[in-house]
């Protein structure tokens, strides 16, 4: 029996709570949910031009979703929104692709490689990204680039 899906790193990240704090002056926010498993993610973003300044991520959901959200919230500060969108695409592709190659995952998300073979759980990992994209794409002039 294998233990790889919930390995130490995932567990550690899933328990981080520092990005749960709400932002004082978010430029945008959004809530997304996954009806199949009841996960719900609320994202707040501070953004200047194309650059994300700060982000919070409140998650009612499973460990995969919480771990993914914690990493994203940590990473996002200082990142370009376009980069984040590309990372989301890369991650989705890596999860869904037919070939089994951990290298295809964005480096900071390589710990999610074991999720690959559990199709029904891909959406848990992707949900925080969806939240950011939904949130920012509501802002005029950025989202529709």
């Amino acid at each position, binding site marked *: *029996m*294998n*233990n*790889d899906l*919930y390995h130490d790193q995932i567990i550690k990240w899933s328990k981080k709570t520092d990005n749960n704090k709400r932002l004082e002056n978010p430029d945008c926010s959004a809530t997304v949910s996954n009806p199949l498993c*009841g996960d719900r993610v609320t994202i707040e973003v501070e953004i200047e031009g194309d650059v994300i300044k700060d982000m919070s991520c409140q998650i009612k959901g*499973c*460990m995969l979703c919480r771990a993914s959200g914690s990493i994203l919230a940590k990473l996002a500060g200082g990142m370009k929104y376009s980069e984040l969108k590309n990372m989301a695409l890369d991650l989705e592709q890596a999860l869904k692709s037919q070939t089994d190659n951990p290298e295809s995952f964005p480096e900071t998300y390589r710990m999610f490689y074991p999720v690959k073979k559990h199709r029904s759980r891909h959406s848990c990992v992707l949900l925080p990204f969806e939240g950011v994209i939904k949130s920012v794409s509501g802002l005029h002039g950025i989202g529709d680039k």
Partner: protein
Amino acid sequence: MAFDSGLAAVDFSILRTPGKEGELHYLDNAAMALTPDCVINAMVEHDTLRRSNVKRGLHRLAEEATEAFEEARAAVAGYLGIKDPDEVVFTGGATAGINILAHSLGLMFERNDEVLISQLEHHSNIIPWQVIQQRQGIKVRYLPITSDGRINLECAEEMIRSRTKIVSVTHGSNVTGAITDTRNLSDLVHDKGAFLILDGAQTAPGGPMELNVLGADFYVFSGHKVYGPTGVGVLWGRKEILKNISPAIGGGEMIRDVGLEKSTFLDPPHRFEAGTPPVTQAIGLAAAVKWLAGKDLNGMHSHLRRLTLRIMEGLTELSGGIKILGPETGMERLPLVSFSVDGLHPHDICQVMNDRHGVALRGGFHCAQPLHDLLEVDGSTRASLAIYNNDKDVDAFLNGMEDCLKILG
């Protein structure tokens, strides 16, 4: 002599040949039971010897297929303890059965008529009535539940009133395991001239029944939960009522006369079996209920009661904010236990139980979101038992839960 679940387990290829992943502790029976080889064989035999459409053909295969199909109907009638096989309608499943009823009875509703269901219901017994409510301006009302997850039948007398046309409730909850006491309910319903529908999806697997004793007018269940095939279910109704309902789901093989403006319908059960029925699956279902009826059912019930109790007591002993939904130990319940764990998502529990312990559970809302909202839990994890489960499965479950709490907690 004690019941030997191994004697049932040997009938299942799927249990005899564990995958490379190791032993399988299948505790997801309330979602779908496994199916014994004799059911599979009955269907293979039918498809290779008697495959044909039914009801109208005059050639050998059609006659044999029709005979087999009608024998399946009789076998199901026998299982339900009713005399007239023509009260048995083959459907696609419990959900299809309730939809046929809701849409057909719906044709007779008037504005402001009421349908009474309960807060304990599976979505299958909620959504169809909501559709009729939205379409026709009837009102769907909900019998409340007790804090231990039973339908609060004390409210029934007050809530069933002259506008109430239908009372449709679960006979056994797929979440709390509570079993509905139908004796008084049936009288209350009939006193007001309403009909009582029982959702038997979770009670049908308990073995042969005496439907008449329940006092219901309709009863639905699914093949796949009584060790039978997917794609088939049963709607039972009293003949004199079925005869007076116009079917809302139409097609071939259910009409008497088709005109361009209007058509008339065959007698039950055919009027409710629009189109080609699930022939092979009905035959598989008959094989399943005959197989089950041949088991030591008293033995099975006390065996499953004991395992259920072990699960409940085992969970209670674990530290870590575990809350068991439904009637407490000692009270009657179905052989299933749903529970929530503070701070743990049911999907995480299910995943770890599967990956590390080979235990198959189900987590989430179990198609009963209103119930979870009321019990104020964000989903639950469910272990549900069937005839082939044994103490080893319970051991694996309890060990696994301990591990889960350690890893995830």
